[in-house]
């Protein structure tokens, strides 16, 4: 009758445990373990069990030690308001507590949701195929490079990326390239975007993949993507374009500028700012279908002739193809993709376009206000901006950032005298405060 398990999540009463042990024919649970003494462990980690209430209180106290700042931070991780319905629907246990859809007959719901997510990405990129998620933009970029390595016939091994690139993205890419004996090299930037002339000089047979992004890490929109696409095309390199799911709602379609692959971040929909947790986009042309990394959901039929969905082309994957798989990815970000899809559905195309347009307008407006302050120039780059822009400050940038933090605002210090500021719907109403704080500290 009584239950005295160590874990509160096992249901066994003492009687049940005894009956089960008897059925197996052993004395106690210890007898089931086949661990030789020298490597056995006594279970003493020194971790005191706590009640769920104690843990909620403990973690609330811990997280309260994060300062209460208004964040004007971006550079690859963006917060937009996530409608409440996203949480309520994605948190449904049938989604949240399910596994990868190995038995499609009892997984139609999640499969269809992922199929719809893929379809939204197909619309946003103009490409033929989108997988149902990578970890984040950085790992998606790495996977693009290994795909390029497999499909390109150039004599080279160079992945060419912008000189200005999110440091984390570059570092992840290096790790993927390392295993495939590729090297990462950079091309110069001019005023926040690619120096296309310099890039033309650099492009050549040794380049396996050419990567550009728009918006760039500095929030600038590339204006000559088609030219970059042409360069890639001419030299036989794969053209990988990096972007973001919100920006893709309004920017010229990647397909139309010749992108072979689109990578980037879709976690700006569906996720709050979550310390960098993301959702990697991976879309490409049909030609590379059987080289795509990650999971793909396809439409099929069931035995009744009704449309049904299933994971497909699994022979690309590690659990079938092992060391010849297109990627080692197994668990991906399916639930985050679900969240992004629900968020996108909630916004609809009107809402998405409005949100994207505000990313342009709000950045422009805030830059103009900061430009009006003495000791600051903004935007540094003479480009169109999306969400964020660079500010030149006469004083040392790290000190200014620190002073702003003391005033309750977080911005990036990206160079000795350069700050970067990101504005979205979440902080747009706090720009007065930021401008006032700038005035205070400059």
């Amino acid at each position, binding site marked *: 009758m009584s239950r005295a398990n*160590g*874990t509160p999540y096992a249901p066994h009463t003492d009687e049940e445990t005894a009956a089960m042990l008897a059925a197996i024919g052993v004395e106690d649970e210890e007898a089931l373990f086949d661990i030789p003494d020298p490597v056995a462990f006594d279970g003493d980690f020194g971790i005191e069990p706590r009640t769920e209430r104690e843990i909620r209180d403990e973690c609330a106290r811990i997280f309260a030690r994060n300062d209460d700042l208004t964040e004007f931070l971006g550079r690859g991780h963006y917060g937009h308001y996530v409608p409440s319905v996203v949480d309520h629907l994605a948190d449904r246990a049938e989604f949240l507590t399910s596994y990868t859809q190995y*038995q499609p007959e009892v997984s139609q719901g999640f499969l269809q949701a992922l199929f719809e997510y893929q379809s939204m990405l197909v619309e946003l990129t103009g490409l033929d195929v989108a997988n149902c998620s990578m970890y984040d933009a950085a790992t998606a970029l790495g996977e693009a490079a290994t795909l390029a390595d497999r499909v390109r016939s150039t004599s080279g091994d160079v992945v060419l990326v912008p000189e200005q690139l999110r440091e984390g993205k570059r570092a992840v890419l290096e790790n993927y390239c390392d295993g495939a004996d590729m090297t990462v090299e950079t091309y110069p930037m001019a005023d926040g975007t690619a120096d296309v002339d310099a890039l033309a000089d650099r492009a050549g047979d040794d380049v396996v993949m050419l990567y550009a992004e728009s918006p760039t890490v500095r929030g600038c929109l590339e204006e000559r993507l088609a030219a970059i696409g042409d360069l890639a095309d001419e030299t036989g390199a794969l053209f990988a374009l990096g972007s973001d799911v919100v920006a893709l709602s309004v920017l010229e379609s990647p397909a139309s500028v010749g992108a072979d692959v689109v990578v980037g971040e879709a976690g700006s929909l569906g996720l709050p700012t979550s310390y960098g947790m993301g959702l990697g986009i991976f879309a490409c042309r049909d030609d590379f279908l059987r080289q795509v990394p990650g999971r793909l959901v396809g439409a099929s039929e069931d035995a009744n002739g009704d449309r049904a969905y299933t994971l497909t082309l699994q022979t690309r994957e590690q659990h079938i193809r092992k*060391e010849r798989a297109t990627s080692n990815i*197994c668990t991906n970000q399916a639930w985050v993709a679900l969240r992004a899809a629900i968020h996108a559905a909630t916004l*609809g195309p009107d809402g998405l376009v409005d949100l994207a347009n505000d990313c342009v307008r709000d950045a422009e407006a805030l830059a103009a206000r900061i430009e009006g302050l003495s000791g600051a120039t903004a935007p540094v780059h003479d480009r169109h901006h999306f969400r964020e822009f660079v500010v030149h400050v006469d004083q040392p940038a790290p000190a200014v950032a620190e002073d702003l933090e003391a005033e309750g605002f977080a911005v990036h210090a990206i160079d000795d005298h350069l700050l970067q500021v990101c504005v979205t719907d979440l902080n747009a109403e706090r720009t007065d405060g930021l401008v006032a704080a700038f005035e205070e500290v400059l």
Partner: protein
Amino acid sequence: VREPLLSEKGQATVDVREGSPLPDDLTREELTLPNPSEPETARHYTRLSQMNWAIDAGPYPLGSCTMKYNPKFTEDVAADPNAAVHPDRSARSAQGNLELQYRLQEALADIGGMDAVTLQPPAGAAGELTGILVTKAYHEHHGNDRSEVVIPASAHGTNFATAATAGYEVVELPSGEDGRVDLEALEAAVGDDTAALMLTNPNTVGLFERDITEIAEIVHDAGGLLYYDGANLNALLGRGRPGDMGFDVMHYNVHKTFATPHGGGGPGAGPVGVVDELAPFLPTPRVREAETGSGYERFEPDRTIGRVHGFAGNWLVLIKAYAYVARLGDEGLADAAAKAVLNANYLAERIDLDVPFGPFHHEFAATAGDRDAADVAKRMLDFGVHPPTTKWPEMVPEAMLTEPTEIEGQSSLDDLAEAFNLAYADTDEALDAAPNRTAAARIDQVGAARDPRLSWQALDGE
């Protein structure tokens, strides 16, 4: 009742250039996407969810997947808005997050018997890659030119793919007669080219590698490192630690061992633990207690491999893992392993299928014999349970790799056994026709792959 695609319920096309703040040549002309109202959205996803199996619906005994109950309170802990900060915050202004990262690093190090832990890898496979890159960096730093990674044939597919991704050649190690590593075969496989042996313990049929000390000695003597695939750690919690067995590097699957929800395919998290010697190679940044003053700070390990994720990994998942570990504590962790092993052994006892190897721990590979394991599995769906992993690992013919985990009770296991037995004993016709009590009947997976239609755009005209 089929739920239409969102696109079938109505789409809208927006003229993007009208009223755009951008010049026309930077924008697309139009955007066409579904435009459901919020009630329609709610219904769509509610209905979809109702067509989906989940651990909250019933047993989910996929071997090597460790699908256990995800305590609800961990969701609340992770939903704390104070935790939802930007990764580029200064350490000074993100002390809360750093503290939790530090505490989780420490707990995981204790649990694995490791010296240092990174939380950055966003999934188990990413953890594997991290561990192998660390291994590679270690060898390179020491001037070792080693090109091979040795992997037992029965290992998870990710092990092979990971080694390949890191640029290694894979040396496949055949299983011994008893389903375990054959020491002689191992001796033969390792050598000067061996960078590492990747091993799961208990292995993928639930067998503890009793000779682990000898295995470690053989690999270390050859100058290789020993990698622990944490997929089956649930069986060892509080009973044995990879570090104590001679493993140098390991990953943890938090959705398997620490009950974070799998979310239909992720997000997971794959922290990596290493022994002291390998700590300098871990990804950057790590978190430690501040060297001066109080609090915590980020630091770059001396010879870091760089990064394996753009930011700090799957943060919200890591929070849940911390909460789970805190909830269980020492006794809970050890009992989770005990009950997981008890359940697997009880279930194996109750089913009519043969289980070729033993003694197993948290999972077992039954064989469907002359029946098709996949068909038996489909038939099990009709009896209201989710079937095990099928046809893997290959060393067991028509394998049904079954892992009930600690959360099932006796009656639930009895129900599961009954479904096993009914399906296994059913007619060929019944197996062929299965499933027929599910939202969809048997799905044509071959057709799906032959004629891939991967988006609603690809269905146009249907």
